[in-house]
């Protein structure tokens, strides 16, 4: 057990050290205010990353999530602002469309037997194109429901605020962890990522699980789109470009093995927090330019991939397929 938890512990330790160093330099970073904003600012990324964790655990990849966030945002904005729908109805519509979208990608991946990245690439083009065809402008959303949601806050001691979308992200992580580690679907996902042939021989319903995984990823991406819409109070077809890369980075930094079959949903949470920490640190510092974010994230990604390699090369000698 301790050995299989090693990458998770490594991530947690690195986060603790990084946060400790940041706090030593800027003592104000250790406050509920900063921590509350951490959760709110990264909520849409965190929710997306939970879905991505499942996809990567199953041995696949989903490049379409950023585009799904953009599409959901514009769809909701148009339904509310132009068609006069109630936001909740618009949310339900967006989630249903995303479920169908993800399910279709899962079907294509399973039945056409093609790599996931090319299918989800097509999905990315389709969702981004669809969003841009609806409208090319940014559409503001002014609805009392939106202002009501953003007025709901839990005030933490020390001036911090825990927003609805921050709580929603934590809830998604907890439910995601339960599904991954405590349900039949979760074990199917792990089995699929470990070895598809063995999984199917052991009686894992491969088709159903593959479709389920991509459906889950798209639905969570749509939920992230809803959160993004609440966060920005607007829809824009080019919103959340490149979020898929951040989500994949968070999952990898969180210790999930990229070949699938190994990882923890909780690790992804730490991964998201670590990415958030990098961004917050750069904002606090003020003299560092924003492009350092990308370089640091790339560096972290490299560090953790090499770390995984070393740990798994040490624990499973022999059997190293190309």
């Amino acid at each position, binding site marked *: 057990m301790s050995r299989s938890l090693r990458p998770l512990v490594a991530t947690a330790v690195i986060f603790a050290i990084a946060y400790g160093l940041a706090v030593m330099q800027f003592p104000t970073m250790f406050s509920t205010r900063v921590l509350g904003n951490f959760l709110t600012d990264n909520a849409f990324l965190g929710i997306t990353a939970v879905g991505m964790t499942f996809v990567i655990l199953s*041995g696949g*990849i989903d490049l379409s999530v950023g585009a799904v966030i953009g599409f959901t945002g514009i769809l909701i904005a148009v339904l509310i602002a132009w068609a006069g729908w109630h936001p909740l109805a618009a949310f339900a519509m967006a989630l249903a469309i995303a479920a169908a979208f993800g399910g279709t990608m899962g079907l*294509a991946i399973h*039945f*056409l*037997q*093609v*790599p996931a*990245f*090319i*299918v989800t*690439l*097509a*999905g*990315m*083009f*389709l969702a*981004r*194109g*669809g969003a*841009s*065809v609806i409208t*090319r402008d940014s559409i503001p959303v002014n609805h009392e429901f939106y202002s009501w949601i953003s007025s709901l806050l839990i005030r933490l001691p020390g001036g911090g605020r825990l927003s609805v979308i921050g709580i929603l992200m934590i809830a998604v992580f907890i439910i995601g962890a339960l599904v991954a580690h405590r349900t039949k679907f979760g074990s199917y996902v792990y089995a699929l990522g470990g070895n598809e042939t063995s999984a199917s021989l052991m009686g894992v319903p491969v088709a159903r699980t593959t479709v389920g995984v991509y459906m889950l990823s798209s639905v969570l991406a749509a939920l992230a789109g809803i959160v993004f819409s609440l966060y920005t109070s607007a829809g824009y*077809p080019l919103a959340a470009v490149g979020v898929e*890369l951040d989500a*994949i*980075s968070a999952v*990898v930094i969180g210790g999930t093995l*990229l*070949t699938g079959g190994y990882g923890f949903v909780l690790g992804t949470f730490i991964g998201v927090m670590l990415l958030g920490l990098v961004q917050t640190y750069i904002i606090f510092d003020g003299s560092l*330019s924003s*492009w*350092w*974010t*990308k*370089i640091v*994230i*790339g*560096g972290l*990604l*490299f560090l953790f*991939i*090499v770390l995984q*390699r070393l740990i798994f090369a040490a624990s499973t000698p022999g059997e*190293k*397929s*190309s």
Partner: protein
Amino acid sequence: MMRRALSRLANPQLLALAGVLLINWILFPNFFRITWQDGRLFGSLIDVLNRGAPVAILAIGMAGVIATKGVDLSVGAIMAVAGAVAATLVVAGYPAPVAVLAALAVGLLCGLWNGFLVAVLDIQPIIATLVLMVAGRGIAQLITEGFIITFNDPVLVFIGTGSFLGFPMAAVIALVLMVLVTLLVRRTAIGLFIEAVGVNRAAASLAGIRSRMLLFLVYGLSGLCAAVAGIIVAGDIRGADANNAGLWLELDAILAVVIGGTSLLGGRFSVPLAVVGALIIQAMNTGILVSGFPPEFNLIVKAALILLVLIIQSPLATRIVPVRVAAPEARK
């Protein structure tokens, strides 16, 4: 011999290109009109060649990578880095040839870094190249210090916008690269070795192929091609834009290679057909633009195109319609 050459011409990719051009011609009757002006050719067809050249150049490098069952997501970011290096050096007063060589060297270095991750550290290609895809644009911005560096260097501008015998320079460079790389992989055994590594790397190594060396070669070539494309794009706009140069072009390049019939499962590739794939994509782009549709339409058409190619390539289709080349069984 003659018949063989003819049957080679009648492959699906060239037919598709002809089909797209025909649709463009129906939508826009002046599509095939080419005029001679100021010592160079003008017209929509020439525009397709010119605008398609960067993706075609990326596809030349990408074809080899995909043939080894890999993929290179970092080419767009490498374009930005190479453009930034070339622009910064000419602005700092270095002669253009030095700037071009330095940009090419940086591209090669980036490619070799990817090759190192894939060949030595044994990391999945999609993730190995993701590192540079994320960090590369940051590095490019570091080089340009966040500004869009503009220049007026005649040599760089000529590479981006000049013409040779009436044809746009970018298209000429793409053609030369295509011929050179095709000769390299098809007149020597290197192409076969690359395909062997793609089918089964362990078996290829056991058969005496230095697969590590080959992986360095294909990723290095891909980085080099990306640098060439980056210099062309920078020369075209007379500036290095670290944020937008080559943005999402890696996806177009992969699409071009896949349309060109290279299997994503490795083991089969064609450099000239990948270039034809790039031209098909660009012909569609131009067609959508000249016929007055919004450019966003493009993304949907591309998605449909990917799906079509995947269905044709899939084992399901080969079971229904037997084709000459059997698709490999495994998927990852």
